[in-house]
């Protein structure tokens, strides 16, 4: 039994990191919007789905001009996907900004935090059903090309080039975002607004602009997460809803407002889910992620990387 565990462990870790990287990207967007807008935004899961579907639609619409998804070496995608992703990012950003303008901005002025949470839950239901209405209930894929997984570590781990690319890109995005928040004026303005919006205003920061920036940044990360999942697995209307609880678990686990925390939280939740699927039963997948969350919060209630101060 133990031999079997050791033999499968490298693959479990690889699967966990892959699953965790998508969760991490979504959780980073969620933690940023939570820290600045001060409410749990349930529409973030649907922004992931819509970002993926917008990109897929753009790919189909632009194929006569860009020649399809493209191909880079062993990957199943190329420049075509990058162009479509740009359109998908614009679509998801406009969706997020429209939601803020039409729904959340009004409620921020007149409602309480719980009103915002309930409104976001309602909006997420509407957005999910709109996907079914527009695209149908079946799952869709970016490409039907058959991909052979490469063997690593003497055959103990099998990973496709697409999966490796997604893992690398997710890590690069997390590092880039951390640098952006730490060393750029916009990043500092976002951190300042998250800590004290009134003080940010009297320091000359246009906090309304910061809020719009956060929505767009969240939508960009959500779209990337949706497309990465679409490349390595498939897109389906329930994708956002199914990701929602792991996203919150990862954001809380990492410490609300912390980008490295959300990244690490996502990886931990992904690894826990992967281990549950392999060693227990697929049905325990979400439960194990939450057990890890509870265990860490009991030891460190503010999460792994709680904001300083």
């Amino acid at each position, binding site marked *: 039994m133990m031999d079997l565990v050791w033999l499968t462990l490298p693959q479990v870790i690889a699967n966990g990191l892959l699953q965790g990287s998508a969760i991490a990207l979504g959780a980073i967007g969620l933690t940023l919007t939570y820290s600045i807008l001060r409410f749990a935004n349930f529409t973030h899961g649907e922004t992931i789905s819509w970002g993926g579907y917008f990109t897929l639609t753009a790919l189909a619409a632009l194929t006569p001009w860009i020649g399809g998804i493209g191909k880079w070496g062993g990957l199943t995608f190329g420049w075509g996907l990058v162009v479509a992703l740009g359109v998908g990012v614009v679509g998801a950003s406009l969706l997020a900004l429209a939601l803020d303008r039409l729904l959340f901005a009004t409620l921020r002025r007149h409602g309480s935090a719980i009103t915002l949470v309930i409104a976001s839950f309602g909006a997420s239901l509407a957005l999910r059903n709109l996907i079914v209405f527009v695209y149908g209930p079946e799952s869709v894929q970016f490409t039907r090309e058959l991909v052979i997984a490469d063997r690593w570590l003497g055959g103990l781990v099998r990973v496709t080039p697409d999966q490796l690319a997604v893992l690398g890109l997710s890590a690069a995005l997390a590092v880039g975002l951390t640098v952006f928040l730490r060393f750029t*004026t916009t990043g*500092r*303005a976002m*951190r*300042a607004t998250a*800590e*004290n919006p*009134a*003080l*940010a*205003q*009297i*320091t*000359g*920061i*246009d*906090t309304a602009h910061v809020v719009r920036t956060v929505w767009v940044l969240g939508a960009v990360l959500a779209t990337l997460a949706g497309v990465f999942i679409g490349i390595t697995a498939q897109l389906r209307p329930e994708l956002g809803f199914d990701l929602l609880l792991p996203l919150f678990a990862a954001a809380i686990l990492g410490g609300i407002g912390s980008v490295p925390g959300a990244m690490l939280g996502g990886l931990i939740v992904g690894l826990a889910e992967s281990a549950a699927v392999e060693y227990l039963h697929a049905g325990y997948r979400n439960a194990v992620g939450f057990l890890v969350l509870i265990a860490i919060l009991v030891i460190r209630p503010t999460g792994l990387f709680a*904001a*300083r*101060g």
Partner: protein
Amino acid sequence: MLALQGLVAGYEPGLPIVRGASLQVADREILTLLGPNGAGKSTLVKAIAGLVPITAGQVHLSGRDITGLGAHRLARAGLGFVPQTENVFTTLSIAENLALAGFFLPSHHQRRRVAAMYALFPDLAERRHTDAGRLSGGQRQMLAIARALIPEPRVVMLDEPSAGLSPKLVQVVFQKLVEIRAQGVTLVIVEQNAKAALAIADRGIVLVEGAPRFVGPAQDLASNPEVARLYLGRRETA
């Protein structure tokens, strides 16, 4: 420099806290706002700074009508504000706080201003990479004042700058305020520590129920028995 005409402001519609406040602050003047708790002193400066809605009246800065401008625009228009509490970004270092305070200035100007603040507050220069959340109360107050001064404002309003500080530190802070005025900055100071504030102020205003009740030179107010008895915490001796 700063002029208010019939200013009415409050947090809730129909429940004004500032009720028809009118006053003038001259160039390079130190004006202190005194009054009992709940008189509306803090609300008045927050309204001028754009943090509390103004429902009637006007605010002019150097002749320009700035009534209702957003707080971020006022900061860029030359009006600085130092709140009583939560007046620095605790998760940012001293250097980051100061860099952010002048982010809208040309970079060479910003660097010059930050250097000027380090010269004015040498303690901050020594700890520039320390998170503001780790500073003592006095150091935080110095950073809060430096943050407000970075964009070279014409007027700086300070809400209870002595709150929570030891008497020795209060003296240091008020001495810095005198130095800052000497550099050409007009100061409006809300204070409970009336004695210390009147000692450095040119004029004082006693605010009662949201409107000025006594206005006059600081020395006159300090020696006014009614003001002293009612608002400065002194008792008449038999």
